[in-house]
């Protein structure tokens, strides 16, 4: 199949037809920060962290397909500040108490904030009132930390393909709800996958807690995306 040529921040890259800009960048060793996107899942383009400029216009890199001759900008001061602002908004919108979070050190939202050098969000804290829910014998749902990326909605299914998680309500009231009957029937592997696929500490596998010591967690030593950049 014919190769597609495009440039990302001036670097000539090649891509296969059907690839997204995010995938093409990754293959060329360029990390475009992303949050709701998860490799292997249909991208939803909901968080907009991966916004790049394509021929001068903003687009989500995880959903935008490559095309011949595209000029993509990603590591510009304007886009980097916008990404940081989005991360800061997520930090003030929910209740993210990193010191007491089981996912700290392995959390992708926190890892992005680390990568962007966030010291304090520029927005006022909202102190949203949300609950902690025991959704099945194996899983806890910590709504304070949920960023509504919908990875769990897409990825966690019963053997017959039914969704266990679903978005309820709209806009500011949107929350991720759980079907209690289906959640109760989840096998151990799927329940663990639900915790692993959650980018933050919103879905927790019960009775595990702080399993890996500080210093040995995923993002303790190297920034998110550094595995792509060193390839």
């Amino acid at each position, binding site marked *: 199949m014919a190769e597609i040529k495009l440039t990302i921040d001036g670097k000539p890259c090649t891509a296969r037809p059907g690839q997204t800009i995010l995938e093409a960048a990754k293959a060329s060793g360029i990390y475009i920060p992303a949050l709701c996107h998860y490799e292997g899942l249909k991208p939803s383009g909901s968080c907009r962290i991966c916004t790049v400029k394509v021929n001068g216009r903003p687009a989500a890199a995880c959903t935008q397909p490559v095309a011949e001759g595209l000029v993509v900008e990603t590591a510009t001061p304007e886009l980097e500040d916008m990404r940081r602002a989005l991360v800061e908004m997520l930090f003030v919108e929910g209740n993210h108490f990193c010191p007491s979070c089981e996912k*700290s*050190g392995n959390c992708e939202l926190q890892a992005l904030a680390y990568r962007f050098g966030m010291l304090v969000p520029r927005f006022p804290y909202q*102190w949203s009132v949300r609950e902690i829910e025991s959704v099945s014998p194996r899983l806890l749902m910590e709504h304070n930390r949920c960023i509504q990326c919908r990875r769990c909605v897409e990825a966690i299914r019963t053997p017959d393909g039914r969704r266990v998680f679903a978005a309820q309500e709209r806009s500011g009231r949107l929350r991720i709800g759980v079907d209690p009957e289906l959640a109760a029937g989840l096998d151990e592997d799927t329940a663990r996958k639900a915790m692993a696929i959650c980018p933050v500490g919103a879905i927790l596998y019960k009775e595990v807690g702080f399993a890996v010591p500080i210093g040995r967690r995923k993002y303790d030593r190297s920034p998110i995306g550094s595995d792509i950049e060193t390839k």
Partner: protein
Amino acid sequence: MSKPVIATASLAGCFGCHMSLLDIDDRILKLIELVEFHKSPIDDIKTFTKPCDIGLIEGGCCNHENVEVLRSFRKHCKTLVAVGECAVMGGLPALRNGIPIKDCLEEAYLRTPTTEGNTVIPNDEELPVILDKVYPCHEIVKVDAFLPGCPPSADLIWEALTALLEGRPLKLTYDLIKYD
């Protein structure tokens, strides 16, 4: 020339950030050569008697006394630094922010498993009035610098102090910014 003057305070915090300041190991000898400590729990000086160059604030604001102390730090310190998660975002005390203050007090003073007999919620003019929420320092006064972490590592505190004393921008390497 006189040494730069540092003041520190712990508001709604646990003194962990002060512990982390002491955790700079033998650099503490260098620090006392470089600076003079003024109002601080470390030397037990309780009132401001002169202007300070750097104010280090641990903890957020959970009551009126915290607000008063924070405001007086703002007034007396050229550069005010929020040290640690509680000062930066309220921290663990802010876990109560989603719960009405009445419920918090009743839970703490009337309904604990160990309360017996006639119990009351303490209410005396000697006691600082508790705020409806725990507030990050920068939502009360202007804060000039932020050091996140629970606690911020000794290395981050050292880097920030030396940067401020030398008047250079902070060199924040990846390992220094942590929120836990």
